[in-house]
C-alpha cells in the first residue's frame, strides 16, 4: 500500500515535471523567435514576412503565459490532493488508536494489531519486533478476543466496514 501510494505521487511529479520542461523549452524558443523577429524588423522594416513572424512570436509568448497558468492549476490540484491524503492518513491513524483504546489493548498489543492490519503474519511481526513468535501469537489471540473477532481477516474487515 505504501509502495503504490509512493509511485502514485512520483507519477504525478513526473507529469508536472514534463509539463514544466516543455514550458521551459517553449519559453527559450519564444525568446529566440522574438529576438530574431525584432532583429529582422530593425534590418528590413515591416514586410509581410515579418508580419507573419511577429504573429507567430506573439502566439508563442501567449502559449508560454497560458501554459504557465495551466501548470499552476495542475500544481495546485496535486498539492490539494496530497494534503487531503495526509489528512485522511492522520484521520485513519486517529481512528485506529481510538478503537484500540476502546478495546483496552495494551501498548504492545496495539503495535502488534497495527502490523496485523497491515497484513503481516505472526512470524513476520515477531521478526519486526524482535520478539518470540509465541509471544506474538499470544498477543494476537488476546487482540482477537478483545475485539470480538476470530481471525486476522476478521480484524481487517472490522476497519474496512468503518471505512465504507
Amino acid at each position, binding site marked *: 500500500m*505504501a509502495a503504490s*501510494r*509512493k509511485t502514485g*505521487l512520483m507519477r504525478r511529479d513526473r507529469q*508536472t*515535471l514534463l*509539463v*514544466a*520542461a516543455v*514550458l*521551459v523549452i517553449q*519559453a*527559450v524558443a*519564444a*525568446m*529566440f523567435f522574438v*529576438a*530574431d523577429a*525584432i*532583429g*529582422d524588423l*530593425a534590418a528590413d522594416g515591416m514586410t509581410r514576412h515579418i508580419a507573419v513572424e511577429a504573429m507567430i512570436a506573439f502566439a508563442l509568448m501567449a502559449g*508560454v*503565459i497560458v501554459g*504557465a*497558468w495551466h*501548470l*499552476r492549476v495542475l*500544481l*495546485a490540484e496535486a*498539492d490539494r490532493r*496530497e*494534503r487531503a491524503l*495526509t*489528512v485522511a*492518513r*492522520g*484521520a485513519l*491513524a*486517529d481512528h485506529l*488508536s481510538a478503537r484500540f483504546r476502546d478495546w483496552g489493548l495494551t501498548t504492545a498489543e496495539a503495535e502488534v494489531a497495527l502490523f496485523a492490519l497491515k497484513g503481516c503474519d505472526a512470524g513476520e511481526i515477531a521478526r519486526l519486533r524482535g520478539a518470540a513468535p509465541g509471544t506474538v501469537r499470544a498477543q494476537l489471540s488476546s487482540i482477537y478476543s478483545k475485539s470480538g473477532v476470530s481471525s486476522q481477516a476478521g480484524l481487517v474487515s472490522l476497519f474496512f466496514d468503518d471505512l465504507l
Partner: protein
Amino acid sequence: MEPSTELPRRWDPIVKLTHWGIVAAVIGNALVTEEGSGWHIWVGYGLAALLALRLLWGLVGPREARFGAFPPSLARASRHVGEIGRGEKVRHRSHNPLGALMVYAIWGTLLVVIGSGVAMSGAPPADPSAVRGEHGEGGEGEEHEEASAGPGQWLIAPARADEGGEAGTEDEGEELFEEMHEIAVNLLYLLVALHLAGVAFETRRTGREVLGAMIPGGNRRS
C-alpha cells in the same frame, strides 16, 4: 504516526528548472564560451528566456513562488537576523527574508548583464558557431563591421583593442555597455559567492531541508 499537514518544503518544477538552467548558463558563459562569441550570445539569450519565465512565474505561479511571498524588505531581513542571533528557527514557506534580498539582487544583476549584452550583440546570430566580426568597431581602419566574419578571424575584445591604442575608434555607447557588462558580471560572481555561503550557512543552521527543496528528487514527500 503523527498526523501532520505540514509538508516538507519543496520548490515547484519551474523554479527548479529555471534555477538550474540559469546556473548552467551562467557557468557556461563565465567559463566555457568565448566572450562575445555566437555561442556566448546564444547562451545569453537562453538565460534571458529562463529568467523571463521565472519572473512570469513570480506573477502567476503557486503562492510560495510569487513575489508577494518574499517581498524585498530590510525590516523583515533585520528581524530575521535577530532570529538567527537568538537561535530561533522560524519556518519559511518561501525564501527567508535575507534570501529574498539576495534573490532580487541576483535577478537585478542578471537583468543588467542581459540588457548590456543584448545592447552589444543585437539579435542572436543565425549560426552560433560562425565566427563573428567586431560589432560597431572599425579596428585598424579595416571595414569589418557586421558580415565581415571570415573564417579564422576571431573577435578582438575591444578592451584589448584599447590597449593597442585604438580607444578613439570605439563607439561611445558600445564602450558604456561593455563596461556595464563587465561590472555587472563581476558583481554577479560576488553575489553568487554570497548566495552559496548563505545556502551553506542555512543548511548548517536549520538542516538539509533548504537544499533538498531545490535539488532534483530532494525532500520526498511520502
